[in-house]
């Protein structure tokens, strides 16, 4: 596997400009002769599809959702970063670049991150022009807030629904292109395979989820904007439908998968309330500004929180990190919470959470002030748990939230398969080993609006338009394989439901490849995942038929892919024998129990090559160099 990142040379500030000049162009008259397939309609997919259609390409878009407006980008709450420096507080493109590289714990590409920071300002312009109702000041100018511990206020937001508003902007732009005829959107369609001939992506195999029809579509380029894989843990903050199938199928066809073990865990989610729990709900991190996190000092203490006297409580974050206390970074707070629960200090009926207590804040600021700040969140918490957080402390627990890993892409967002591109959370590109708050939306839109529509032209200009058709026998073969797989799932006729397998997989991954990992556990996980996969193919029960809407069948296909993918995650976590960012290996800690990076041996991107199900994949390395942001260690003591 050749890893040519195609990073332009020269000063970092000029690389993107220089690259844009060096790329080949498709003449305006020829654009309509080219067809691009886009899978996924989140921020990256919808913005890329809309922009490419607007440029004149023929775009066909597929989404598993019933409308392009529903992709999970819609659930992002906090905001989107941009180096506008509207607050005159010292922000700049360079500072956003610097913060992002550092936040990613030096496991991302400097050039990509710089370009992201550079484009961040255009994103805001674009979105405002589209009618995204960002929060404004009384002056009528845009408001900002500081987010995720940043020292500058550079986050643009639309109440607690920034992701929704940005996605609706892209969705509307895409619908305009649909009306204009340049784009076609096929809803309730899911990708089953990527078709590669002579090492080049030629199209995809899809399933119409309503009719069950399996068919192919060919194009001059294929874009995967299919999001992340947090649902490998079963319980995560992702939507139920989020899956790894597209990126995994591409990987199986030859696309390198980068850094799959980099998964971000969000510290403030509502803990599961029972075995039936189907997903986890995120509570804004801002709650940690006023809430105090604690657990009972005595393990197994079952008293009600109000009955536990002050001196029998352990405010562990305040104790361990006096400087940052309850505002310690996401990974640290998450890990500490897990540690407390694992040691038997967990609270709540299932002893699976820690308290986030507002009693002191209410006493200090008054109930009204707290209601003003967190009223919505408190109401949401009460709706879900039935407990009133003004009276009883909230219970929180970390949950998988975002995956930094994804398909390896070069500077053009092209995967190791020519003609196959990956955008947004589906690629590995910009966040390194950890993502800063309010940066995911920025990356999705930078990829979709400003990078991909240009870089894809460089590829298209090199190929003959319309050369790929579904007449090629490779399409027949891929369709046949996909059909055989669907039939196989229906034919197992076992006893156990798909969800049961998914939950068991999630349990293994959460315990052994979750927010803290060790070599022994990862090896166990590899065995357990393999066993579970075999059991799945022996004992899964998928009822109904393949030629109607069949949600069990859809789930079964996705879980089957997760069961293969999970192994890769464990291999990657095992191979990365260091701690960095969200990847915490228990073997590599400082004396204070913090993550200990090993830049000498691990300053690279792990890129995995598929060799077969159950076979150990091959690790390739893309070395990372840091010319602009000097390698340093973070400290929150």
């Amino acid at each position, binding site marked *: 596997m050749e890893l040519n990142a195609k990073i332009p040379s020269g000063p970092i500030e000029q690389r993107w400009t220089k690259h844009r000049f060096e790329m080949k162009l498709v003449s305006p008259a020829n654009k309509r002769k080219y067809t691009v397939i886009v899978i996924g309609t989140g921020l990256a997919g919808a913005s890329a599809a809309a922009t490419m259609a607007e440029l004149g390409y023929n775009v066909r878009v597929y989404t598993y959702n019933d409308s392009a407006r529903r992709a999970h980008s819609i659930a992002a709450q906090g905001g989107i970063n941009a180096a506008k420096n509207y607050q005159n507080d010292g922000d700049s493109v360079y500072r956003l670049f610097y913060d992002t590289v550092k936040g990613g714990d030096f496991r991302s590409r400097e050039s990509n991150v710089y370009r992201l920071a550079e484009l961040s300002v255009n994103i805001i312009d674009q979105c405002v022009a589209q009618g995204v109702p960002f929060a404004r000041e009384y002056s009528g100018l845009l408001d900002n807030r500081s987010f995720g511990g940043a020292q500058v206020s550079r986050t643009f937001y639309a109440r607690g629904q920034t992701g929704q508003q940005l996605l609706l902007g892209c969705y509307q732009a895409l619908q305009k292109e649909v009306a204009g005829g340049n784009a076609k959107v096929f809803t309730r369609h899911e990708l089953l395979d990527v078709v590669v001939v002579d090492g080049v992506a030629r199209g995809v195999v899809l399933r119409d989820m309503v009719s069950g029809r399996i068919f192919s579509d060919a194009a001059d380029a294929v874009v995967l904007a299919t999001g992340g894989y947090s649902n490998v843990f079963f319980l995560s903050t992702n939507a139920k439908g989020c899956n790894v199938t597209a990126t995994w199928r591409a990987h199986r066809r030859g696309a390198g998968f980068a850094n799959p073990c980099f998964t971000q865990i969000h510290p403030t989610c509502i803990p599961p309330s029972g075995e039936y729990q189907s997903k986890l709900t995120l509570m804004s991190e801002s709650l940690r500004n006023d809430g105090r996190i604690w657990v009972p000092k005595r393990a197994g203490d079952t008293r009600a929180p109000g009955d536990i006297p002050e001196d029998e409580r352990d405010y562990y974050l305040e104790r361990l990190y006096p400087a940052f206390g309850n505002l310690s970074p996401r990974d640290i707070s998450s890990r500490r919470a897990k540690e407390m629960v694992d040691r038997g200090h967990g609270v709540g009926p299932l002893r699976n959470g820690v308290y986030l207590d507002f009693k002191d804040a209410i006493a200090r600021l008054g109930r009204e002030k707290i209601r003003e700040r967190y009223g919505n969140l408190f109401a949401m918490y009460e*709706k879900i748990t039935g407990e009133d957080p003004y009276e009883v402390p909230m219970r929180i627990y970390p949950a998988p939230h975002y995956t930094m890993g994804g398909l390896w892409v070069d500077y053009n967002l092209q995967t190791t398969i020519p003609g196959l591109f990956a955008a947004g959370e589906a690629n590995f590109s910009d966040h390194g080993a950890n993502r800063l708050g309010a940066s995911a939306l920025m990356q999705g839109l930078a990829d979709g609006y400003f990078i991909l529509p240009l870089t894809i032209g460089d590829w298209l200009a090199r190929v003959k338009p319309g050369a790929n058709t579904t007449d090629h026998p490779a399409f027949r073969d891929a369709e046949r394989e996909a059909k055989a797989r669907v039939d196989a799932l229906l034919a197992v006729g076992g006893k156990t439901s798909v969800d049961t397998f998914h939950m068991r997989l999630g349990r293994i991954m959460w315990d052994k490849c979750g927010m803290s990992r060790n070599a022994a556990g990862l090896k166990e996980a590899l065995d357990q995942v393999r066993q579970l996969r075999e059991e799945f193919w022996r004992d899964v029960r998928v009822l109904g038929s393949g030629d109607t809407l069949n949600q069990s069948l859809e789930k079964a296909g996705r879980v089957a892919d997760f069961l293969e993918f999970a192994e890769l995650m464990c291999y990657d976590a095992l191979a990365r024998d260091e701690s960095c960012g969200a990847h915490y290996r228990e073997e590599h800690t400082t004396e204070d129990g913090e993550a200990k990076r090993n830049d000498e041996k691990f300053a690279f991107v792990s890129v995995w090559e598929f060799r077969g199900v159950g076979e150990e994949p091959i690790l390739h390395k893309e070395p990372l160099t840091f010319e602009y942001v000097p390698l340093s260690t973070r400290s929150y003591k």
Partner: protein
Amino acid sequence: MEFTLHVWRQSGPAAPGRFETLSVKDISEHMSFLEMLDLVNERLIAEGKEPIAFDHDCREGICGTCGLMINGVPHGPLGLTTACQLHMRHLKGAKEIWVEPWRARAFPVIKDLVVDRSALDRIIQAGGYISVRTGSAPEANSIPVKKIDADMAMDAAICIGCGACVAACPNGSAMLFTAAKVSHLGLLPQGQPERFDRVLSMVEAHDREGFGNCTNHGACQNACPKGISVDFIARLNRDLVKAALTYKPYEITAV
């Protein structure tokens, strides 16, 4: 909790549907409504019966995918809540629970509780956007927007497109959905150039899709999980009448 569940089963778009009655036991009140359905499905699968198809995705009340008529109320009795965020404790004491799909000609049933809401997409295609070529946008702060306008636009823009307004409306009208988008864009300076074309085309598309008309019952507002106000419908009406009577000649095709 223990109750009788009456749920609409329909094997396909053309198939006749019927209510299936299930006796449901051992339900925790902490489950969400959809988790209850998950569990019912697990039990059906164990018995070798096909599970109930229902739409859902984010399960945090924002994607707008889920939509169930629960005991005669879209998204259930809690108010300002989507079905995925409704918890069983809010149905405490209910001996019988009726679950039906959204009912509207424009929302044909695909299977069981799953309906096709693509008509809403087509209303957006008719003009629910601001045309701005990527890259051509002016500097974001070059056009100030009054805070009150931005806030009102946001009040309309929070629509999740779930279709509860249509489901609740005695006339099967999607006017609240249409009005929310017309108002969101019409309140902003960026939305002015296309404002009147937009309202004319979107209302035309709305009627063409086979939705009913708005007779101001207000049921949509009461059913809306985001609490969008019918004031936006008045806004749409004003814009439409103004557009039809004073805006440049515009041929509106017959309904």
